[in-house]
């Protein structure tokens, strides 16, 4: 199997699993308990918190809160901030956020909040000047994702945070960092970002664990009422094995960042160049340099994405698509639509996302197989004249 869907989820690193196993077997004590047996899990959580602190580039491990996933981190940040600051009723976010963020703002819109959704240009880059122009005195929250899950485009969150704080110090800045974590270096202590959420399973920890970074002066309400865990902001007995796993994954990913930026990027670039060269109806949906190194989004014109995925899957290749048919809804990707990707390529857009476990032979195999798949699938398409024109243009 060739797994090129690492923005959806990643394989658990063997070393992560090894680190977790003792806490799934003998070391089952509740870390809050007052006997020696509880010392080891309690220490393991402290250790993991330090590792995740370093991963974020945060100043203090007290700024790290463990959650169950990226969606929970986002909900905790957004709802927490807005509930603590009820007189401010304006929010700025982007059109290309993850549904866990967008749908939370949709909820607040129903409650009477005013939300500005900032668009992106044809390359998927955020309209930063437009965002700046929307900032108001009563803006409670500015919320921008670090990197987009579909295109990999990195948004200038540090610059945005800097600007927001210079104009409106009380406005909070939340960054959904899920798709940046483990792909590019993060250094929150030297930014004005107030809160940032991440998800463990996007960087080789298991599913079911996330974290929220929060600066010490930020006040939020908790989503889950209960005990004192996570400094009273996220009640519930700590998920010790998964917290340990995320700590280890954070440590390993931090070490591998340089590899991500060089080798993973080289393989991604090779994949893009190879497909563009060999497949006549392929176009890059974005090619900007400011992308996370592992992500590529390629549109195959006049062919539908799910059909491409099914044929890739028959060859053991896993990727994903922004097509309507795969999203569960009937509409194609809101991100690609915000970029204005033409209909001819929109429905046939495929995202390949690599990881540090992607091999050169994986990439070679996809480059080798893609032309035959496209020859077969374009032959089924009713748009033969348009395809013929594309073929000729490619030859010239």
């Amino acid at each position, binding site marked *: 199997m060739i797994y090129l869907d690492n923005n959806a989820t990643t394989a658990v690193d063997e070393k992560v699993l090894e680190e977790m196993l003792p806490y799934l077997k003998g070391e089952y004590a509740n870390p809050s308990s007052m006997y020696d047996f509880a010392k080891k899990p309690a220490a393991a959580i402290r250790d993991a918190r330090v590792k995740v602190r370093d991963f974020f580039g945060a100043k203090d491990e007290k700024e790290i809160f463990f959650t169950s996933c990226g969606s929970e981190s986002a909900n905790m940040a957004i709802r927490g901030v807005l509930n603590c600051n009820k007189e401010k009723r304006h929010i700025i976010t982007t059109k290309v956020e993850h549904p866990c963020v967008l749908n939370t703002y949709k909820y607040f819109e*129903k*409650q*009477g909040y005013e939300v500005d959704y900032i668009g992106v240009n044809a390359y998927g880059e955020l309209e930063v000047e437009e965002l700046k122009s929307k900032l108001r005195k009563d803006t409670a929250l500015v919320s921008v994702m670090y990197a987009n899950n579909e295109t990999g485009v990195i948004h200038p969150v540090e610059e945005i945070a800097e600007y927001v704080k210079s104009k409106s110090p009380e406005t909070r800045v939340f960054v959904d960092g899920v798709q940046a974590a483990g792909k590019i270096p993060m250094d929150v202590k030297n930014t004005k970002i107030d809160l940032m959420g991440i998800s463990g399973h996007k960087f080789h920890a298991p599913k079911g664990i996330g974290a929220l970074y929060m600066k010490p002066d930020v006040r939020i309400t908790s989503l889950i009422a209960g005990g004192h865990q996570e400094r009273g902001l996220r009640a519930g007995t700590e998920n010790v094995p998964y917290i340990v796993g995320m700590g280890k994954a954070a440590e390993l990913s931090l070490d591998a960042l340089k590899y991500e930026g060089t080798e993973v990027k080289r393989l991604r670039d090779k994949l893009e160049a190879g497909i563009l060269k060999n497949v006549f109806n392929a176009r890059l949906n974005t090619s900007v340099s400011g992308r996370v190194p592992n992500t590529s989004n390629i549109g195959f014109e*006049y*062919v*539908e*994405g*799910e*059909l491409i995925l*099914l*044929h890739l899957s*028959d060859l053991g290749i896993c990727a994903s698509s922004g*097509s*309507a*048919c*795969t999203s*569960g*809804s*009937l*509409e*194609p990707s809101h991100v690609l639509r915000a970029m204005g990707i033409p*209909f*001819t390529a929109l*429905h046939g857009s495929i995202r390949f996302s690599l990881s540090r476990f992607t091999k050169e032979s994986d990439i070679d195999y996809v480059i080798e197989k893609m032309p035959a798949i496209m020859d077969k699938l374009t*032959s*089924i*398409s*009713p*748009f*033969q004249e348009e395809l013929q024109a594309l073929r000729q243009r490619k030859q010239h």
Partner: protein
Amino acid sequence: MWDYSEKVLDHYRNPRNVGKIDNADLIGEAGSLACGDSLKLYLKLDGEKIVDAKFQTFGCGSAVASSSILTEMIIGKTLDEAKEITNKDIAEELGGLPQEKMHCSVMGHEALEDALNKYYGGKYNNTTVTNSSEKVVCTCFNVTENQILEAIKINNLKTVEEITNYTKAGGACGRCKGYIKDILETYWGGVNKTEKEELTPTQKILKISKVIDQQISPELQKDGGDIEFVDLDGNKVKVKLTGMCQGCKNSQMTIKTFVESILKDKVDSSLEVEQV
């Protein structure tokens, strides 16, 4: 990952009768590139018999499979026999389709219908629904009232969600969902009218209270609100909105488009709901 039948897998992997018939006698089309799937169906006739059929499809696995199996189903049939084929037959022939993918079988049927309409000079229409209309209901996917009525009739559809699965209508912006509900109510109201018996006022109150508790209240609670049934005065249902619904600027809309339409559907079509 969809749970596709073996037959669907076989037909998207090895589609039969792909391509174009150069001197086709009939060509049927359905769907569009913008909407994410489209189908062109070519038929070759000998008298009134379909002797060859080919297709070209832009669409997902189940769209290709539906088109492919449709060509197999119609080759050798007379036009009269082909007329009887519905989307349900296509889906059944494929060993079933996931609910969310039923619209693929509908697209196959629409292309066939389009071709047959050309043969019969537009006079052929599979629907026997009265007052059929070409009025567009869903502007996102360009679905007409006629297409919705036909899908209701053939597949015995009862909910807006089912209509979306079968025709795509309401699947994008969702603004036409109220309209679709009206179409459903008109259709089933017309069919069921005689079966509905007159309720006594006590029975009516009990029924209203049950519908509010079981179907309306849980929905409003999802948004942090709730509803209380206060009184029934003739045909006027008096209710009180509570929680988040209270003072919400959309509350009047909630009352009319949501509460009233459910009560009309489930209890009595003459009911009117008002807030007290």
